[in-house]
Every structure is written in structure tokens, then in C-alpha cells.
């Protein structure tokens, strides 16, 4: 019996080289855990952060090696069609790994300041990044779900990891309950799609739609698609599935919030793009209106709700919902190519990718500043706590201003190029109304960023202020320097990044 089993089962051939980014990250996470368990006392301070950063950089390097290979040889399936190595997947890998790198830089001093120093946070960040990469690479709904759960479970723990703040616990529980709920939606959607098509493999599903006659079980198909979109809507935090966002973002340790807004969002978007484009492109006229509605609601709800907040973390949480709306405008555009047939708007696809990368760096930098201004206790996040920051910490205030202006989409920042690309894609697809709506929501959101800038520059510090001065540790300084340089340099010379996103979209396998 045992013999028979082994002889009939032949595992898929494994292309180990293609998996190197994942292997490096997994190895790194294990080493950190081991080191934390065995020799925590012996390590100098900052060792974990430094090691995490090194792992991230190594993963970044091999990702670019793989990128070159994909650009030359074209995309390919690995692990028996379970995952695919292509441009968009590697692009999102870069986003996620860069997020790990920046998060590690911001975590270093934060954990020591808050008395939370330890190996777990770094290991969890890496593990959650691995989950995100699996999501971005998956070409099978089950693998996608595995990635999603790896990402989410690590994030639930991270959100609750500030032991001394009750809000952090609340944030973790809330995220866990609602996240579990959305995973259930997603999984049920997968089940229904399996019922409708007989496969969870995206390419097989698409093929089934093209060759077979899906008319008989369209009900199943639509119900499954709707459930999948709900699951994704929750993960990308698109309105009206955003309810958890402000509370979780506010409660989570601030560097973790940055990671949530960057890597987690990028992974979920990568998966969403792959599913709707690869498996369901045939039905784009059915899901496009849903994306349209999600985009418009997210744009305006995010912008308007952000204005009325007084807590900067909540402001940025709501503004991140508005940014999701912008990315969804790009998603809507890619399905809206006026020409008939299976041609997608590569411009729409690449604009969404570009936005994810630009926003990831900008938002990580922004939450990096918030981390520092939050001071010990991670509690000073009211708008008043920023008053007069330009006097006490002019460079920090200037950095935050540039990052906020980038979020607002002011030219000569990478944020403008991101918005410009998305609006280009929408206009190219003749979605004029949503393009104008998106720009108008950007004006509303600009008011929010101006409020923070006013607080930093144009208001005097409160007379009776008892707050300790803001400290800028070296590691966080490096992180902010990277974010600032990225924002400005690619704002002036976006050529490289535009081509990067364009090439990624061009290698998408349908």
C-alpha cells in the first residue's frame, strides 16, 4: 500500500532557483527566530533590524536577477502551475521586500523605545511578507489562499504586538475577527468557483470559460466572483469593506501600520489583479461596474472621512482608503479597453502597479514620521502634537511635508507621477467621469494633508506643552532618507520606474 502510493505520486518538478526570494526570506525568518531563542542576550542592540534589512536586500537582489531572466526568457509557470514567475509578481515582490526593509528600519528604535525588543516582530514581518509574495505569484486560488492566510495571521499578531497599549490589543482582535470573516468569504468564493468550473487553477478556469459553456451555472459563477471580490475588498480596504481600517491602523504599532498600508495592500492588489485579469477577464463587463463603484466610494469616503479626524494615524488610515480608490481607477481602466477581444489595457495594469510601489514607499515614510512624533508610548498622534514641529525638528517636518505633498499628488513628487499614470489609463480607456471624480477627490484629500502641514508650519507649539522633544534615531533617519530620496528623485526622473511598471505589465501571462 505504502509502496503503491509512492510510485503513483510524482511531485511537480521544483525550480529552486525561481524560489530564491522566498527561500532567502524563509531562511532569514528562521535564523531570527533561532537567534532570538538561543542567544537573545548576547546580540548587540539593533542586530535583528540589521539582519532583517540584510535579508531584505539579499531578497531584493535575487528578485532583480529573476527579473532580468523573466525579461529575457519570458514568464513561466513553476511548481506545476501553482505559481507563476512573471513581471507583475516580481514587481510586487520588490514592493513587499522594500516594505520589509523600511519597516525594519523604523521598528529598530521603536521596539527598544517601547520596551518590546525581541526577535518575534522581525520574524513576523518577514513571514507576512512571504505570504504576500506567495499571493502575488500564485496562479491557483488555493495557493493564493495559503499566501493570504500566511500574510494575515502574521499581521493579526503584529497588530496586537504592543503589549502596553490596550488599543493595540483591540486592534489585533478586531483585525482578527473581521479578517477571519473575510477569509471565510474568500474561501467560500473559491469553493463556488470550483463548483462552477471544476478547477481552482486560474488559467484552467479562464480556458473553461472560453471553450466550455458556462451559461448553465452562471449563478454559481457570479456568486463565487462576488464573494471573492468581497474578500479582496476587505484586504485592500476598499470602501464599503473598510470599516476595520481606521481602528486597526490607529491601534497597531505605528511601523506595523505602515507595513499594513504598503505590503499587505500591495499583495492583496496583486492577487486581485491576477484573479480578475487571468481568470475572469471574459466577464469583465460584469465585474467592472463593481470595481467602478468600489473606486468611487473609496475615493470620496476616504477623503471626506479623513478630513474630519483629529488623529493623524486615523487621517492617514482614511486617506489610504482614498488611495485604494485611485488604484481601483487603474484596475477599472484596464478592463475598459474600448477595443473588443482579449486585449487588456496594459497602461491600466502598469499604472496600478506603479501606484502600489509609489504609495508603499510614501506611506511607509509617512508612518515613519508618525512613529517618531508618537514618542514613547506611541500615543501622541493628535494633530496638536504636530504643532510647531517645523521649529523643533525642521528637517523632519520638511520630510513629512514632502511625503504629504506626494500623497496629495503635487508635481515633482513620485505621488504625482502615480496619479498621472492612473488618470492617463482612465482617460485612455475613455473613463472620463471616473478620472474627473478621482481628481476632485484628490482636491478634498489635499485639504487633509494641508491641515497637517498647517499644524507643523503655521501653528505655534502649545504654550503648556509638556511633550518631550521628538527624537530621530539613526535607523529611522536612514529609512526616512530613503523614502524622501525615492519620492523626490523619481518625481523628477520617473523614467526608470515608469519603464519598470510597464515592462512588468507587458509580461503578464493571460
Amino acid at each position, binding site marked *: 500500500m505504502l509502496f503503491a502510493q509512492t510510485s503513483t505520486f510524482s511531485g511537480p518538478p521544483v525550480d529552486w532557483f525561481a524560489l530564491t526570494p522566498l527561500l532567502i526570506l524563509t531562511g532569514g525568518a528562521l535564523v531570527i527566530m533561532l537567534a532570538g531563542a538561543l542567544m537573545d542576550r548576547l546580540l548587540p542592540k539593533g542586530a535583528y533590524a540589521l539582519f532583517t534589512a540584510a535579508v531584505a536586500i539579499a531578497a531584493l537582489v535575487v528578485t532583480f536577477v529573476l527579473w532580468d531572466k523573466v525579461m529575457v526568457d519570458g514568464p513561466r509557470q513553476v511548481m506545476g502551475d501553482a505559481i507563476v514567475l512573471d513581471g507583475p509578481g516580481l514587481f510586487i515582490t520588490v514592493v513587499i521586500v522594500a516594505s520589509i526593509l523600511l519597516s525594519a528600519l523604523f521598528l529598530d528604535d521603536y521596539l527598544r523605545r517601547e520596551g518590546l525588543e525581541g526577535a518575534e516582530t522581525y520574524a513576523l514581518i518577514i513571514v507576512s511578507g512571504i505570504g504576500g509574495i506567495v499571493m502575488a505569484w500564485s496562479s491557483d486560488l488555493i495557493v493564493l489562499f495559503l499566501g493570504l492566510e500566511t500574510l494575515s495571521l502574521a499581521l493579526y499578531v503584529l497588530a496586537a504586538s504592543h503589549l502596553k497599549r490596550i488599543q493595540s490589543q483591540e486592534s489585533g482582535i478586531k483585525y482578527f475577527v473581521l479578517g477571519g470573516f473575510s477569509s471565510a468569504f474568500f474561501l467560500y468564493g473559491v469553493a463556488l468557483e470550483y463548483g462552477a468550473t471544476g478547477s481552482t487553477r486560474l488559467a484552467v478556469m479562464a480556458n473553461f470559460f472560453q471553450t466550455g459553456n458556462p451559461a448553465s451555472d452562471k449563478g454559481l459563477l457570479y456568486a463565487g466572483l462576488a464573494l471573492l471580490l468581497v474578500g479582496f475588498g476587505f484586504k485592500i480596504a476598499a470602501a464599503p469593506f473598510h470599516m476595520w481600517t481606521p481602528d486597526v491602523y490607529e491601534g497597531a504599532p505605528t511601523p506595523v501600520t505602515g507595513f499594513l498600508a504598503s505590503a499587505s495592500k500591495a499583495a492583496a492588489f496583486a492577487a486581485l489583479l491576477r484573479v480578475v485579469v487571468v481568470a475572469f477577464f471574459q466577464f469583465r463587463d460584469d465585474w467592472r461596474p463593481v470595481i467602478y463603484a468600489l473606486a468611487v466610494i473609496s475615493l470620496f469616503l476616504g477623503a471626506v472621512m479623513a478630513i474630519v479626524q483629529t488623529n493623524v494615524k486615523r487621517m492617514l488610515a482614511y486617506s489610504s482608503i482614498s488611495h485604494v480608490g485611485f488604484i481601483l481607477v487603474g484596475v477599472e481602466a484596464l478592463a475598459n479597453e474600448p477595443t473588443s477581444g482579449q486585449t487588456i489595457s496594459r497602461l491600466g495594469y502598469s499604472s496600478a502597479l506603479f501606484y502600489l510601489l509609489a504609495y508603499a514607499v510614501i506611506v511607509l515614510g509617512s508612518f515613519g514620521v508618525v512613529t517618531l512624533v508618537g514618542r514613547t508610548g506611541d500615543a501622541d498622534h493628535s494633530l496638536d502634537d504636530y504643532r510647531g514641529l517645523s521649529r523643533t525638528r525642521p528637517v523632519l517636518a520638511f520630510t513629512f511635508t514632502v511625503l504629504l*505633498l506626494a500623497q496629495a499628488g*503635487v*508635481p*515633482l513628487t513620485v505621488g*504625482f507621477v502615480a496619479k*498621472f499614470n492612473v*488618470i*492617463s489609463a482612465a*482617460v*485612455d480607456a475613455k473613463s*472620463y467621469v471616473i*478620472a*474627473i471624480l478621482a*481628481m*476632485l477627490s*484628490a*482636491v478634498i484629500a*489635499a*485639504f487633509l494633508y*494641508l491641515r497637517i502641514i*498647517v499644524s507643523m*508650519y*503655521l501653528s505655534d507649539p502649545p504654550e503648556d506643552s509638556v511633550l518631550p522633544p521628538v527624537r530621530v534615531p539613526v535607523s529611522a533617519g536612514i529609512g526616512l532618507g530613503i523614502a524622501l530620496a525615492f519620492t523626490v528623485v523619481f518625481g523628477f526622473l*520617473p*523614467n526608470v520606474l*515608469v*519603464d519598470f511598471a*510597464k515592462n512588468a505589465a507587458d509580461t503578464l501571462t493571460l
Partner: protein
Amino acid sequence: MDTSFPLLTSIILVPAAGALVVALLPKDQVRLVKLVGILFALATAALTIYLLIDFDKSADGFQFVSQHVWIEALGIDWHLGVDGISLFLVVLTGVLFPLAFWGGDADANHDVKAYTGWMLLLEAGVLGTFLALDLFLFFVFFEIVLVPMYFLIGGWGHGQRIYAAVKFFLFTMTGSAFMLVGLLATVFLYRNETGVLTFDVTVIATDQAIAASTTRWLFLAFAIAFAVKVPLFPLHTWLPDAHTNAPTAGSVILAGVMLKLGTYGFLRYGLYLFPDAAHWWAPLFITLGVIGIIYGAICAAMQRDLKRLVAYSSVAHLGFIVLGTFALTTESISGGVLQMVNHGVSTGALFLLVGWIYERRHTREIDQLKGLQRVAPIFAGVFTIVMLSSVGLPGLNGFVGEFLVLIGSFLTARWWVVVAATGVILAALYLLWAYQRVFHGVPDEANRHFPELRLKEGLVMVPLVALIFFLGIYPKPLLDRVEPSVNKLIAHVEAHSDYRQPRVGGEASGG
């Protein structure tokens, strides 16, 4: 005409470099920072004057063109050029900035380094907007000027400075929102017609490949942004707040140069880019312009605050420019261009003078000021000249532009001109009335010690007053350079629409 020296690029980069240098200077060296700021502004002014001298007045196309690929994937270029329409706006900007710097430096009472840096960045942005010949580049400059202006009003302004700064930012950004979509639609529709993806204004404007009915919408998208900037009647409400609360130099630049971004936009990205649509929409914009003339004048007459009065007078003066632009005759457009320069000079000077009054008396309430002529006759004399130029007294610069606009527009928009002409009378009414209340009479206790015009202030005023007389008496050098480009623009409109310029006496030539 291509010179080896990248003159236009330098004109933009010199102030930008100045901002960078200022950023690197130590914060407590206030005098050094101020000096460096003025020196960079003067260097820019020198470059613009060199541009004026080197400008070939017989040519009607773009000169000193500089074109380099910027974002290849999208067909975006660093593309600059100057013609008769933008030439004097560039020179005006170059000349006005050092004067605003020097004359308005009392407002730079704290954080001089940041103030100087923002001013120089603002100058680079404004010059870039006038020189850009690439839609993307234009948008970038058009939008980026908001940031320094926002900080200048918010940081160094008076009264409700933060409210004014935010309102200014959001109003202009709303206009830009429409423009960005329209701009991209223009580019992509052009690509759909021709297969070429380019942001080059000259290419898109020359080809006119987009269907006329579509261009009407595209024009409207651009026009909303420009109408906010000018500002045209229903979209003007940001202007009084921004002008009144801005620091003196901010007001000078705002009124002198930045409002022209709107009227210049109408010429370059309205008439030139969408000739047919501009002709089609002309009645609407002429009407809004004329409403602006009358409405601005009435509002100005009602103001108690001297600076607010000058701000509303801008609404009226800019109405003339819009009228001239959309009346589409050689005289009216040339007059409009001249009026842009004239308004920059006279309103810039008026804001400086009002700023100095505020500096002395810490109030701008007309009721609080009285009899200044007795105690400060030279100050009053200069104010009289500048005010009369703003009124449009023949022999001073304000007259030439307004007169050309009115006679030019009379051919194509007769009854509007009849209404607009009353605006000239109203201008005399509100300015003379204000002058009478502020300067005539016997000074009361508070005004008895009003200091006379200082030497520095006099030196700032000398070039402005000289320009007021020179442009009023001998505007020919300007018209000679403006008209070839204007004629070409009108020929362009005629070639691409059913509009024909009416000819009077077979020869149409102003001056």
C-alpha cells in the same frame, strides 16, 4: 533660431538653484540670505532682459527653443520656447521679483531663509509656466507654483492667512483637476487619430487632428483651470482673501504675475491649442469677462480695506484681458497682452505702496487713513501716478492696453464693449474716491506722523514709474514684438475655424 547657450533653461534654473543655495545657508545669517536671494533674482532679471534684447522681433514663431526627452515612454519632453506673447510676461516676471523682494522685505520678519527659498522657487515655477511648450511640463509648473505661494501666504501673511492660503490652494487645485483630465484626453485622442503619443503643444496645435466637437469639451476642461486662476467672475472668490492676507511681496507676485498664468493659458492652451472651440465658446467668456469688469469695479468701490480694493480692481482689469483675448482681433489680443504687462506693473506697484502704508500705520482701513498728502507729499505723488495708470489715464501705461482692447473688441463684440467701457469710468470712480479719502483732507493725530517715502522705497518705485510712463507714451517696441505672434495666432484660428477677422480700412495695425 537656436543658440548654443540654453538661455530659457537657465532662466528657470537660476532661481531654482538660488532656492537650493539659500537652503544650504545658515539660518541666522539673515542679511546674507536676503542678499543671496536678491542677487539670484537680479541674475534672473538680467537673463530675461538679455532674452528681450536678443529676441528676433520679425519672427512670429517660437524662439530659443530647447527640447530634450524627459519621460520617453510617454512622449514627454523638456520643451521650452518663447514667442511675442510670452516674451513680455517672462521679462515682467524677471523684473518684478527683485523689486517685490526688496520692496516687500518688511514682511519677511521671521524665518527669512524659508521665505527667500519659497520666493525663488515661486519665480522658477512661474517662469517655467510661461516658457513650457509641453503639456506635461506646463501642468507641472502650473501646479507647482501653488506650493510656494501657499507657504508664503500661510507663513508670512496677515489676518486670516491660513484660511486664505488653504482656499487659494484648493480652488486652484480644483481647476487643475479638470485640466489634467482634459490634457490627458487631448494627448490620447491625438494619439488615436495620428498614432503618435506626444505632449508637444506645437505638434498637437499645428495638426488639429481631434474632431472639433470633441475639442469643445477639452477646451472647457482647460478653461476651468484658467478661469479659476484669472479669476473669472463666478470663480473669483479666492482672490480677495488671498491678496488681502498675503505678504506684500506675495500680493505683488500674485497680482502682477500669477493671475497672468490664467490669461496666458487662455491664449496658449485655449486659442492656440483649440482654435475652433475657443471661437465657439468666445461669447461665454466675453460675457464672463465683462461681468468681471463691472462686478469687480462695484465690489472695489464698496471696500473699506485698501488692499482688498486693489484686489477687486484686479478682477476688473483681468476682465478686460479676457474680453480682448476672446474678441479675437489683432488689436484686442495685442491689447490684452499689453494689459497683462501693464496690470503687472501698476498693480504690483499699488500693492507695494499699500504694503508700505500698512507697514507705517498697521492698518489698511480707508477710514483710519486721512490727509496723508500733507505729511508725505512724495509718497502721495507716487501713489497718484500709479493709481492714475491703473485708472487708465492717457499717457500712462494702463490706457494703451485698455484702449486697444476696447477698439479691437468693438469690431466683434460691440455691445459688450459698450458695457465694458463703463468699467473704465467705474475704475476712475473707486480709485479716485479711495485716493481722496486716504490722501486728502487734514491728517488727524494718528496720521500726522506718517513717514515720507524712504530712499529704498523710492529706488524700488523708480523702475516701475519709469515703465508706467514709457509704456504709456511709447508702447511701439512692445507692440512690434507682440503683433507678429498675435497675427500668427489669429491666422491659426482662422485656418481652423469659420472665424474671419473683420478688416477695417484694409489694414489692421495698432500702435
